């Protein structure tokens, strides 16, 4: 039987922005198909840059990136990625429903299928009654759901979630985690960044700690706790980041 290629393979990724700031320095990373991978690090560590590079939103300065064996720039790779960015970046000229339909269209999905999937997701995410409104009229929690729905409409195999629960209340946060767990159980590979360390520990089967554009350490929550003789991942995080700041 043919082995499934890694969901994501990154070798020697480097990103230097136009202002000279190095956001990522020689980063290697591999995610197996079906993994639930957490990327933890402080603001400015390079998490969003890494996600942007994988999603073809940011130009890497150097490095090779493949998604299920396809170069990340190819259409074969891009149809496999679902991206929910940290910012609520929705097209303000379209209605909520149109926003989903057109996103599906950008992935090459036909009109009928796009409309059906949009309606299904609107119901799934409790947005059916807001379908004809504009995204900017929605509450923060609803906008977050919409961004998630948009990331899912083309049935991606690799779902990238950049702070998906930033600014949402406890109830919605737990709903989002339940949904993401369900997606992972059904085979979707998840790449997650979050500042909720306890939840990352509970959800992710592997965690990487990133600081100053480098992956400082990675492993399962249990192996990281053991390595740092820590009670939980928060303690691991504190020790790693303190050591990084001192170095």
């Amino acid at each position, binding site marked *: 039987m043919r082995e499934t*290629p890694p969901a994501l393979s990154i070798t020697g990724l480097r990103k230097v*922005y*136009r202002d000279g700031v190095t956001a990522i320095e020689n980063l290697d990373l591999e995610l197996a198909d079906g993994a639930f991978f957490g990327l933890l690090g402080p603001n400015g560590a390079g998490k969003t840059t890494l996600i*942007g590079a994988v*999603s*073809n*939103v*940011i*130009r890497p300065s150097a490095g090779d990136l493949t998604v*299920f*064996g*396809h170069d990340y720039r*190819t*259409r*074969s790779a*891009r*149809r*496999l*990625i679902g*991206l929910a*960015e940290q*910012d609520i*970046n*929705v*097209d*303000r*000229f*379209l209605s909520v429903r*149109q926003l989903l339909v*057109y*996103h599906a*269209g*950008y*992935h*090459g*999905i*036909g*009109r009928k*299928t796009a409309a059906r999937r949009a309606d*299904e997701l609107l*119901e*799934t*995410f*409790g947005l059916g009654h807001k379908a004809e409104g504009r995204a900017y009229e929605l509450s923060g929690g609803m906008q977050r*759901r919409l961004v998630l729905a*948009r990331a*899912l409409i*083309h*049935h*991606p*195999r690799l779902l990238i979630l950049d702070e998906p629960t930033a600014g949402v209340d406890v109830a919605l946060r737990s*709903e*989002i985690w*339940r*949904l993401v767990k*369900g*997606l992972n159980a*059904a*085979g*979707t590979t998840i790449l997650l960044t979050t500042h909720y360390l306890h939840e990352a520990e509970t959800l992710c089967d592997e965690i990487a700690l990133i600081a100053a554009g480098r992956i400082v350490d990675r492993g399962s929550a249990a192996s990281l706790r053991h390595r740092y003789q820590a009670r939980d991942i928060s303690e691991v995080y504190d020790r790693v980041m303190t050591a990084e700041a001192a170095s």
Partner: protein
Amino acid sequence: MSDTDVKHLTPYDEPYEAERAPFLWLAEREVLRFLNIGPYAIAGPVLSTILFVIVFGSALGHRVAPIDGVAYGQYIVPGLLAQAILTVGFVNGTTSLFEARRDKYINDVFASPLRWWEINAALVTGGVVRGFIVGAGVLAIAVPLTGTAFVARPFIFVLGTLAVLLVAGQVGVIAGSLAKSLDHVYSMESIVLLPLGFLGGVFYSVAQLPHVWDVLSRINPVFWLVQVERIGLLGQADVGAAPALVVVWALAAALSVWSAIIFGTNRLKA
């Protein structure tokens, strides 16, 4: 939230095949975007252009001597048409692309299977379609209002107008990709586009100017857009049909290359 159906993950080992071309979706979105704000996007530019026709053509025009044997009201219609298309293309491209960049929803497009040239072409298509609708609206009112004998040279008119539409669409997309703020967009319009329009021979023949200004006017790209429309609609202008067509198509080609470089080299990405 109820559980979502994820039974059918996209296979990773099948070649990409679109049910409907992503380009068509984005081009449709670009048209839908301005249709959703229809009164501002279409009626506004048509109305402001027609006001020029009424004030300068109908109200004041009978006090101005005919130019090259053409009544002044009729004489300014082609130039106003070119200017209306150019302004609409500029506004369309800057609004659509600059706001997509500012609000970051262009990331949604970059992350999709759309290729750079499809994104570029779809954005330009939006400006071209909007320019076409506004141009048709201007002609539909201005021609009967001024008694212009409609389209003296149809071949030149069609070929020239296509180039004008393409120039306008590309100018908007280029400006939208270069703009760093809304103030930047407005200043480009008032400092670059408006003076070039007014000095482009919309309201006069450059033959009426001192020789040096006649020569300088020919450096202004808007001058050639006006000339090609004037030849198409009225049959004559300050330059011949062949040079006018060559210049406007060369301009369209140069702007298309510039625009393609911006998209093809990923300059819109961080």
